[in-house]
Structure formats: structure tokens, C-alpha cells
């Protein structure tokens, strides 16, 4: 019921384009700061507003459950994990260490990739311009899809998580005998 009111609020006025512009700035500016911060701790912390804005995109698109998962898994899990790794690799956050390599041409390749992708999207015809009506109970339908036709992928993902957890423990274990 609250979700219905929220969708009416989002779709009925100029709030959606305004939110989109604000969220785009909230994604892209922190992303640039992630790449161009000299201090790796600043980079990891700038990832946080970027990921929160991506969660905002998910809310804007009507995928509230994914926004919650994004906040929990990325902002709560991965960023903390990365900060721990920065803490344990002492000295690499030193701002005096050169932060970039000399691969300027590969950097230009990244810009070229964006140019090609954006040019294709601007010039291509036939993208749907209006979203259809949002069906009720998106989260319940996602649960039905995950435990119905996609249950095999779901279970494989669980096994991969278990293997990754055990593997990370084995790899990161300190062995003083070496």
C-alpha cells in the first residue's frame, strides 16, 4: 500500500526526471572520484555514495528488494571488506606512491568504449521510451522466479558462495612455516 503511493508519487510528476538527474550525478561523480583519488582509502570510501545512488536507481525503476540487497551486500559487505584489505596491506595507502601506471593509451581505450556505446544508444531506434505499468507484488514475483524456473541457478550461486568462502579462508590463512 505504501509502495503503491510511492509509485504514484514517482510517476505522476516531474520528480522522476529530477531524481534521475540527481542520481546520475550521484553515481558518476563519486565513480570518477573512485578512479582518480590518489589515496586508496578515499577511493574505497567514495565507492559508498556511488553504490547508494545505484540503489536509488533501483528504487526509481521499481525494484525495491534489489535496492535493499544492494545496500546490504555492497555498502555493508563489500566496502567494509575492501577497507579491511586496505588496512591489512599496510603502506599501500601512502599518497606519495605513484597511483597510476603509464598506460595512457589503454585509458583512452576506456573513453573510446564509452563513445561507441553511447553513440550506439543515441542513434539506435526502437528502444521503448515509456515503461509499462508496474505489476503488483514485484518482490513476490521475484521470489517465485528465483525458486521456480531459476532454482538451479539459485542453488549454483549458493554453492559458489560456499566455495568462495572456504577458498578465501584457505588462501588468506597465514602460514608461518613458509
Amino acid at each position: 500500500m505504501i509502495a503503491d503511493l510511492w509509485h504514484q508519487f514517482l510517476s505522476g510528476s516531474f520528480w522522476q526526471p529530477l531524481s534521475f538527474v540527481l542520481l546520475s550525478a550521484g553515481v558518476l561523480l563519486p565513480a570518477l572520484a573512485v578512479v582518480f583519488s590518489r589515496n586508496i582509502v578515499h577511493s574505497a570510501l567514495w565507492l559508498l555514495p556511488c553504490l547508494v545512488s545505484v540503489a536509488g536507481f533501483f528504487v526509481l525503476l521499481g525494484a525495491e528488494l534489489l535496492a535493499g540487497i544492494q545496500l546490504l551486500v555492497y555498502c555493508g559487505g563489500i566496502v567494509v571488506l575492501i577497507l579491511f584489505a586496505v588496512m591489512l596491506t599496510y603502506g599501500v595507502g601512502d599518497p606519495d606512491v605513484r597511483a597510476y601506471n603509464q598506460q595512457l593509451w589503454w585509458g583512452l581505450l576506456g573513453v573510446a568504449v564509452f563513445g561507441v556505446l553511447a553513440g550506439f544508444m543515441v542513434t539506435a531506434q526502437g528502444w521503448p521510451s515509456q515503461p509499462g505499468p508496474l505489476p503488483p507484488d514485484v518482490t513476490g514475483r521475484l521470489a517465485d522466479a528465483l525458486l521456480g524456473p531459476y532454482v538451479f541457478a539459485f542453488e549454483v550461486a549458493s554453492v559458489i558462495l560456499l566455495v568462495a568462502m572456504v577458498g578465501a579462508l584457505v588462501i588468506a590463512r597465514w602460514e608461518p612455516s613458509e
Partner: protein
Amino acid sequence: MTTVPLQAYLIVSAALFAIGLLGVLIRRNAIAVLLGIELMLNAANINFVAFWRYAGTANMEGQVFTVIVMTLAAAEAAVALAIILNVYRRFKTVNVDQINLMKG
């Protein structure tokens, strides 16, 4: 009623992907390279959810893919950071251009 067209989401996501690719290519620190990979995965997730919303909400494939991608991103981050810790213990650095033991 003014709504945001699909291309706007795709362009933002392409820009995020290009920034992440730039981070992967030009940073020396392996943890910063991992941050770039996270940015690229998030760009893919925005695309998945945007296509789900605009190209038909009858099927839930877009959101299912996003859930799987997030799961694999978490697993990948855990394993990659464990490898980075091990590399740091062995080489006392995590700069990817100084770890060239197998260079011919």
C-alpha cells in the same frame, strides 16, 4: 507526463562502465583495480534492471540476473581480496606492475 527514456539509463550505465574500465586499466594498486571491477558490475546491474522495467515486467529475468550478479560479485570480492593479502605477504606490494615474477 514526463518520464525518463530508456536511453538515459543506458548512457549513465555506459559512462559508469567506462569509468570502471578506466580504473581497471590505469590504476597500479590491485585493490583499486578491484574497485573498478565493482563499478563495471554495477553498470551491468543498472542495465539489467532498466531493461526489465522498460522491456516488459511480465518476465523477471532482469531482476533474477541482478541477484545472481550481486552474489557472484560478493564471492569474487572475497576471493580477490584473499589473493591480494597473500600477494602482499609474499611480495610486500600490491602494485600490479611490480608483481612480474612470471615475466619472461
